């Protein structure tokens, strides 16, 4: 039985539909991401799970029973907000202690728990400091300790890394993952950062325009997106319009034998990293001309004009081509994905 289940959640704000038919299941101890652009309803979903917002329709279930009538303060789902929201009038110790105090845990136990939590987030020795004396990463650690102190059923993280600089962000990601694994706590992470979602999650729910477009493990979402909108969210892709007939993909640009049982008009998707640029000597590849080059250190992004189309291509920087160079394009056809094309050819 999934630990958290959302059933047909709907929500409107002033006649604007924010969420329509959200269905989601989260297994115990897993970390899943709600991934999507800003305004897609992911934070609203998080607040509905926490009980800060009531859905217009649908149900939220924890361990199989509805929690809609349980107020946020008793639900056991804690949000760590983007701005950390440490109480400015309380020091680190008192901040972590806050939830325990609200739950009327006795003083001795509170002391032990706060100590344990501060040790967990490696913030021992900072007990007496006030939030304004802490750095961004430290604030986040304290916010995390404060949330975990009350042993919530679910940990909800709302864009937790967006206020940190790149380097700190990476180490905090590892840090949170480590703690999540250690405590085995069910966690829902809201993010607009595709890389973050891909790297951290057991499963990703991709949200667009108030619906979950696809829910699955990261590799599946990236390699086998259900439609082009999902595909485009994860980055640059190449699309070729054509049709499939008797195991053959036929188009103006390429024609190739495939092992997919589909017929009719399709759009073939090729990921930029599945295109390799080679020297023109190997004549059996498609030939093209480098139109644009963006060098990113560990990768190089090319745009190559070939057969009347611009191919987007990402390659390793071990062989660098210049703009204007003639190159051969080597496509890994086995990793092509086909979408039905209603418009036809």
């Amino acid at each position: 039985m999934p630990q958290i289940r959302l059933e047909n959640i709907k929500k409107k704000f002033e006649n604007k539909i924010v969420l329509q038919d959200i269905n989601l299941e989260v297994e115990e101890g897993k970390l899943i991401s709600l991934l999507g652009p800003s305004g897609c309803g992911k934070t609203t979903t998080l607040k509905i799970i926490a009980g800060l917002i009531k859905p217009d329709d649908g149900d939220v279930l924890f361990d199989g029973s509805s929690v809609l009538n349980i107020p946020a303060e008793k639900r056991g789902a804690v949000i760590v907000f983007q701005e950390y929201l440490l109480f400015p009038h309380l020091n680190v110790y008192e901040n972590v202690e806050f939830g325990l105090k609200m739950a009327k845990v006795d003083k001795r136990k509170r002391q032990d728990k706060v100590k344990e939590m501060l040790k967990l987030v490696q913030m021992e020795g900072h007990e007496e400091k006030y939030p304004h004396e802490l750095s961004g990463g430290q604030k986040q650690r304290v916010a995390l300790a404060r949330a975990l102190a009350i042993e919530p059923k679910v940990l909800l993280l709302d864009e937790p890394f967006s206020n940190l600089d790149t380097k700190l962000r990476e180490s905090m990601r590892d840090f949170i993952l480590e703690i999540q694994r250690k405590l085995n706590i069910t966690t829902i992470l809201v993010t607009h950062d595709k890389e973050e979602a891909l790297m951290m999650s057991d499963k990703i729910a991709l949200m667009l325009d108030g619906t979950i477009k696809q829910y699955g493990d990261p590799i599946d979402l990236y390699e086998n997106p259900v439609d082009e909108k999902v595909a485009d969210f994860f980055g640059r892709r190449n699309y070729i319009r054509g049709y499939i007939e008797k195991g053959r993909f036929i188009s103006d640009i390429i024609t190739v034998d495939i092992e997919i049982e589909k017929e009719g008009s399709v759009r073939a998707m090729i990921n930029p990293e599945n295109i390799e640029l080679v020297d023109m000597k190997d004549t059996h590849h498609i030939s093209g001309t480098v139109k644009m080059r963006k060098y990113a250190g560990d990768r190089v992004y090319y745009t190559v004009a070939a057969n009347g189309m611009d191919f987007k291509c990402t390659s390793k920087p071990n062989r660098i081509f210049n703009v204007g160079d003639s190159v051969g394009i080597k496509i890994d056809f086995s990793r092509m994905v086909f979408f039905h094309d209603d418009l036809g050819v």
Partner: protein
Amino acid sequence: MNRNRSIIFKIIAYSAALLLLVPILIIIVWSFANNWPWPLVFPREFGIRGWEYFFSPTSNSISTLIYSILLSLTVTFITLLITIPASKALALYDFKGKKLVEILILAPLIVSPVAVAMGIHQLFIKLRLANTFLGVVLVHLIPCIPYSVRILKNVFETVGDKFQMQGKVLGANPLKNFIYVTLPIISPGIISAASLVFTVSFSQYFLTFLIGGGKIITYPMIMFPFVQSGDRMIASVYSIVFIAASLICLRSMDRLLRKYYKRGDYFYI
């Protein structure tokens, strides 16, 4: 360029300070001057008749002062009690007729309560509130509430309800959330509002005079006759005490609140 600017700034700052200080210095001198006729730059005869009168038991000055302070503290307390929830609602919630409520609350800033004081007096006589402590407290609320709402509404708008949300998910019920999260976070705003409200109430003359009907005597009421009759020595003494009393009260309120919420300097309004 920069230097010029700082000189100009200094001139402005010092002249502003001078403009505030000179009148106070003059009253201090006056409070010890038996008379100070026109062409003299400095008085010739000094005495302590004014201070003697003030401290003499027959003048009732000290007891009136204490009574007045208590009255204004009561007004301040009740104003805060009303305006904290009201400001929160106006700042954070949407409800029908919000604009109207806001205009009504702020109306006393536009239409002076003095203008409607006669009507209020009639009503208070009927309700048996005229000539009572409670009546005076209630009438003081009218000019005090708008100031407090203006300050606190701004505070709530700045802080938003995010800390309340955080408190809630951490297990604080609405009451605990209010006491442990909301109040401390808005405490700097409470200090500002309380100071202003206290001053407004403490310097009310006409409203107290009308509704109190001579039965409720506050400090400004025993002070004004001296200002009017031209006994400048005694009037100056009363003015000095008035200023000192306000300052002491404001300072101690500030201290008390700051101490209670440990520190109020993390968040300036």
